[in-house]
């Protein structure tokens, strides 16, 4: 079995038309033509005529949940979500940024997506490794079964094994490259603060110039802010012009949060984000 992208695209268009026509939603967040086939873009359909510009192929990696918070509260939105993206939607509902009843979720089961910059296949190494969306109203394609289930955290083993000095050397080298274009936070569906803490002058949390310590402060704090919230879509790393493997750190934090608090981000609408929650019987062992 393989993913029939064309079929998904057709179904996406049919659904989008239906939804827009019936006035059930005022916008459809999905994918549209880019400057060439390999470079599709996030696309917002507002009118019936927009639907023709929609596409879906293996390069449609963007997490459309990122755009949800851009529209006024109460806007009726249909959104196309891949597995990780659906978790972002759930997480945003948990955080009361959007309401479930304002959304029509068009689920897309996928594997074998490709990074449009490198052409590499995207798998559990850089994303959450799921094949089917966690939540949807309509599924644009067949549920994927029979694909190998790989833990999204397997990729961490190599880094966890490292000696702490080596790990520091690794992160220093990676983070030192950061040019502070903030594509990571802008591509992130969960980063919706405006202004971001690092943009502030009072307090000035970290240096604003792209040097080691400011970069470190920005990224570490961002990892913390996303603890228990990161849905492991991997968009931050794909957005990064200098290819910093931010996903590794996010995965590590997500893994630890899952182990400590027994809950993964964006899996259940009823959950409360782990870091603004507690259990009286949380063990002190988590501090050791």
């Amino acid at each position: 079995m393989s993913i029939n992208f064309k079929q998904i695209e057709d179904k996406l268009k049919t659904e989008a038309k239906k939804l827009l026509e019936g006035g059930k939603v005022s916008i459809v967040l999905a994918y549209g033509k880019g400057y060439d086939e390999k470079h599709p873009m996030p696309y917002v359909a507002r009118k019936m005529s927009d639907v023709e510009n929609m596409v879906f192929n293996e390069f449609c990696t963007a997490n459309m949940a990122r755009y949800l918070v851009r529209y006024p509260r109460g806007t009726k939105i249909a959104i196309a979500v891949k597995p990780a993206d659906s978790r972002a939607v759930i997480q945003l509902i948990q955080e009361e940024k959007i309401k479930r009843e304002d959304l029509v979720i068009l689920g897309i089961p996928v594997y074998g997506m490709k990074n449009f910059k490198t052409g590499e296949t995207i798998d559990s190494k850089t994303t959450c490794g799921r094949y089917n969306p966690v939540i949807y109203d309509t599924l644009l394609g067949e549920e994927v079964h029979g694909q190998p289930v790989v833990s999204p955290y397997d990729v961490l083993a190599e880094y966890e094994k490292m000696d702490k000095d080596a790990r520091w050397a690794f992160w220093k080298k990676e983070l030192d490259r950061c040019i502070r274009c903030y594509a990571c936070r802008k591509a992130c569906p969960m980063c919706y603060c405006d202004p971001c803490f690092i943009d502030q002058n009072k307090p000035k949390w970290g240096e604003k110039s792209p040097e080691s310590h400011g970069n470190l402060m920005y990224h570490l704090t961002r990892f913390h802010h996303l603890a228990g919230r990161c849905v492991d879509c991997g968009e931050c790393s794909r957005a990064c012009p200098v290819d910093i493997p931010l996903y590794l750190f996010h995965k590590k934090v997500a893994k630890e949060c899952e182990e400590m608090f027994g809950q993964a981000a964006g899996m259940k609408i009823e959950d409360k984000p782990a870091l603004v929650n507690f259990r009286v019987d949380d063990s002190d062992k988590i501090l050791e």
Partner: protein
Amino acid sequence: MEFEPKILGIACNWCTYTGADLAGTTRLQYPQNLRVVRVMCSSRINPSFIFRAFQLGADGVLVGGCHPGDCHYNTGNLYARRRLAVTRKILEFAGIEPGRFRVEWISASEGNKFAEVVTEFTEQVKTLGPQTKFKIEQQPSLEKI
């Protein structure tokens, strides 16, 4: 000369800070490497305070709060426990020795525990040596092209 670490303490007003005062009132002796910031509750501690402290040259950071269940603000330290646990994991994955960051629940009546923890933690940080990874060098680094 023996390495004398700089240790930042962040203590909640109601338990650990009061406990530290009690250690003083009972004249318990402990190493003088600890410099305490008083906050109202351990939950006030923003993780970035800790990252920043290491950048500013802290060799260790000790956080003190009320025992879980005894928080002056009911549940503050229960949130703090989760947040600081994550802070710890982040520091560790970034390559900071976990022994440089510690959270202890010290009540207002535990002056002796305060003194013991400070003594023990100071010793531990001494063995780990100076913290150089996060520390910002005084000289601004070279321009980047």
